[in-house]
């Protein structure tokens, strides 16, 4: 099928792209735009490595049509840092050794971002439920949960200080 002009808003920038209407968002991000932070793991919505936010809602870009995201705000891991400084979750990953091989990290970070936006003070059980569809095959979950816990606390403290 012929390519069509599609407008995608990604990380605050608008991109006009000629793509096939059936192109997958993950391919457009990685191949057309060079945003290779989102990873292709399982290719079947099972592992979460490709998770991005669409209007703040976590979705897996490996099985998502890029054209269906027009007029929505897409956020990838490249758009998580603010004004050149690391977001709390990125810093915490470094501090706690949350990443081993790092392949699952972008997906986890995006899911944590969506959780924190929805629920700034989640319980341990809520964090684990929210992350149940992100898999880490290095199995470094303990450090990762420590990092996530610390990032949530850091954001909460920042919010209290801002008040």
């Amino acid at each position: 099928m012929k390519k069509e002009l599609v407008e995608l808003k990604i990380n605050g920038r608008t991109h006009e792209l000629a793509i096939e209407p059936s192109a997958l968002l993950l391919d457009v991000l990685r191949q057309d735009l060079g945003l290779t932070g989102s990873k292709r793991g399982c290719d079947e919505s099972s592992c979460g490595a490709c998770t991005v936010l669409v209007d703040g809602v976590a979705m897996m870009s490996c099985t998502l049509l890029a054209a269906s995201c027009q007029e929505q705000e897409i956020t990838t891991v490249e758009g998580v840092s603010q004004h050149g400084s690391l977001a709390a979750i990125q810093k915490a990953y470094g501090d706690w050794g949350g990443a081993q091989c790092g392949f699952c990290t972008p997906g986890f970070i995006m899911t944590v971002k969506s959780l924190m936006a929805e629920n700034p003070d989640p319980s341990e059980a809520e964090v684990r439920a929210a992350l149940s569809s992100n898999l880490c095959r290095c199995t470094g979950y303990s450090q990762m949960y420590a990092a996530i816990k610390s990032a949530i606390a850091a954001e909460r403290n920042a919010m209290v200080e801002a008040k």
Partner: protein
Amino acid sequence: MRSDPKDYELVAPGSLQAAVGLLARSPGEWLPIAGGTDVMVQYAAGKLPSRKLVSIWNLAELRSIEVLANEIRLGAGCTYTNIREHGVIGREFPMLSSAARWTGGIANQNRGTLGGNIVNASPAADSLPALLAYDAELILISVRGERRLPYAGFHAGYKKTKLAPDELIRAVCLPRRFSGYVCHARKVGSRNAQAISKVCMAALGRVAGQTVEDVHIAVGSVAPVPLRLSETELMLRGKVINESLVSAAKKMAVAEIRPIDDIRSTAKYRAAVTGNLVAEFLNLLSADGKA
């Protein structure tokens, strides 16, 4: 082999009328895609039979949840997230809420739709036993108009449904008459998130003392289609729950199912678990009668 987007056509009609109009012009040719959590997995794997996709995601007509006096009418395009966040569904149809929570993971729940789960017709789908137990009805739509039919019997065989090639599911209707019932839903699988069930069950019932007044038991992943255990239900109605009744119900439930050996489990295990789940439910029902 992965699919090449060049080989596929995709259109996104702006309204439900336009979508069914397209289906009517060439029935069977276009594959409707909503959240794509099933369709796109086949697409990514190069296993999608159709080369023409019609997107029904974002059709507002399919996304509403109407709370009427006698029933809740769920648009077929409602996502699992819409379902698990809905207060009335949580209170009156808790087994559907639970099923929505343990289907896939959060990202899949944000995208996967109830209508898609029905049409994909997997016998292992988590939400379908709940729909069967709650006596759900479907509203189907085409250019010929709308028709309403009971969800029980919609699956004609493995991955076969009564949906005509020019039809879409418009809504799923849940009758609001189970508020006083004991409900028990279980998913038995390797883990809740991202794992397909080995056996799932949704059951509801009402007792007066220890006498069974009404009972609905639906199971998934143990037959070519999601199944109501009608004979077991019939045998239970009007009986007093005791050990011998529970044991008879277990046997009858196992006789009604047609489990298979596959990559996730064995027929033997599935039969044993089905019997145990039925017993677990009857014991809960009995405890409720004593309370």
